[in-house]
């Protein structure tokens, strides 16, 4: 399938490389490929939350595997983003219990408030709204994932607050 090729600036900092080497050390020496999923998470977090072809090629080089092996994996798992996305991605769980607790109304509300549709990024590149499948927080529905964290028992007021906090740069996305 033909894909759009997005460009990205790659910056493999020392801190990032140290973390990658630590992750690689969790597996036997001849099983470097095993580190692929955690390593992709790390490089994605350090690169605006998405992976370009060049970045995946870099990972292939580090893990001494073929680039296609990285593409195969990166396209299989939903948490890897293969194109530029909004900085704050509101990933609403839309499976059964969250629906029972009104997540669909909240999604409509959020989309309307931000002026975007599901899967779209706001013009300023700050927000993106997505519907995802069960996140394992059914008892705390409705909920969403924002960065590494869950925001649970959501209400319209809480969403207003979250949007305001994002705009004020008060939200921590990754636990490093």
């Amino acid at each position, binding site marked *: 399938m033909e*894909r759009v090729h997005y460009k990205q600036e790659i910056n493999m900092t020392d801190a990032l490389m140290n973390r990658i080497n630590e992750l690689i050390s969790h597996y036997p020496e001849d099983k470097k490929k095993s580190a692929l999923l955690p390593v992709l998470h790390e490089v994605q977090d350090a690169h605006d939350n998405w992976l370009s*072809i060049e970045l995946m090629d870099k990972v292939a080089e580090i893990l001494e595997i073929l680039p296609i092996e990285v593409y195969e994996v990166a396209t*299989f798992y939903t948490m890897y983003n293969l194109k530029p996305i909004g900085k704050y991605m509101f990933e609403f769980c839309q499976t059964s219990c969250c629906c029972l607790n009104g997540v669909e109304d909240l999604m409509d509300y959020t989309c309307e408030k931000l002026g975007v549709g599901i899967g779209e990024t706001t013009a300023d590149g700050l927000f993106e709204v997505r519907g995802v499948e069960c996140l394992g927080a059914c008892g705390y529905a409705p909920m969403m994932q924002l960065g590494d964290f869950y925001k649970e028992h959501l209400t319209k007021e809480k969403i207003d607050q979250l949007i305001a906090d994002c705009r004020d740069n008060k939200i921590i996305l990754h636990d490093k």
Partner: protein
Amino acid sequence: MKVTIDGQSIEVEPGTTILQAARMIGGESVPPAMCYYSKLKGSGGKCRCCLVEVSKGSEADPRPMPKLMASCVTGCMDGMEVNSKNSDRVREARQSVTEFLLINHPLDCPICDQAGECDLQDLSFEHGKSKTRFIEEKRTFEPEDIGPNIQLHMNRCILCQRCVQVADQLTDKRVHGVLDRGDHANISTCISKAIDNEFSGNMIDVCPVGALTDKTFRFKSRVWFNKPFNAHRECTTPGCCGKTTVWMFGNEIQRVTGRKDQYHEVEDFICNTCRFDKKEVTDWVIEGPRKFDKDSVINQNNYTREMETVHIATEEGILKGREQDRKKISMTAIPLKKEEQEEFNNGNL
């Protein structure tokens, strides 16, 4: 070890799969296989066409297996009893798999180069229905160019993954694979890269459907209008056997493929030079006509056995036609009337 399939018994070595045993017996009990390929390691188990019923596990543990088993990846046990064509359950399961394979298939056989040598056509002929229950929109993929020799039609793909195994096992740097997942899984290079390994052409031969076809043969001819010959040449590519089937139309070689056996598996893999670059009759030593299954459509044009002309009086009459009908379809014989000629000139006819 003794294994019995549809009432026919055979002695097999340990490690033989049910499918292999069935192929040793031969005949109608051989399960269809869309993804298994005996020459590719790790193939099989995915398409679920070859499901069989194990009515007796083994002499030691005679319990039947509760689920239908994929015969291509299930090993024989001593005393095992298997129902293939004889079981209603198996027939029903194969019909289901056929239906599933077809719901999103474009059914574009009339313009597909694989038609006539397509395993999915054979499967549908055997297990398919003429009516569909699927009224939803079919899944489609954006086309991807994977180079000058191989045409990828993802919409026709059944994801058997044989082509990926070919790349893995015959070439050293695989550039294509299965991307995405679920019903959107697709064969791709991800970066629209040309697949230009010397053995990449074998992807075409192992593809059971028209998802990977030969660009140098594209739209040239229906396969049954070609005459297949066994041919060979002194090939200098390391690893290539140089033994092929050349597909001719008159004196022209239109296509070169590996030599396929009755299960449509190549006897040996060939290189791209043989396949794509050697299209002159002088490139090859022609051994003689290649034989195909009795009921293969390729035999429509078979001249290896003598064809007896059957005379049917009525047919002859139809073919010959009545004089007045012949006149009607012959444009020049019946000149147009004046007003008709005018309309024709105006382009309204």
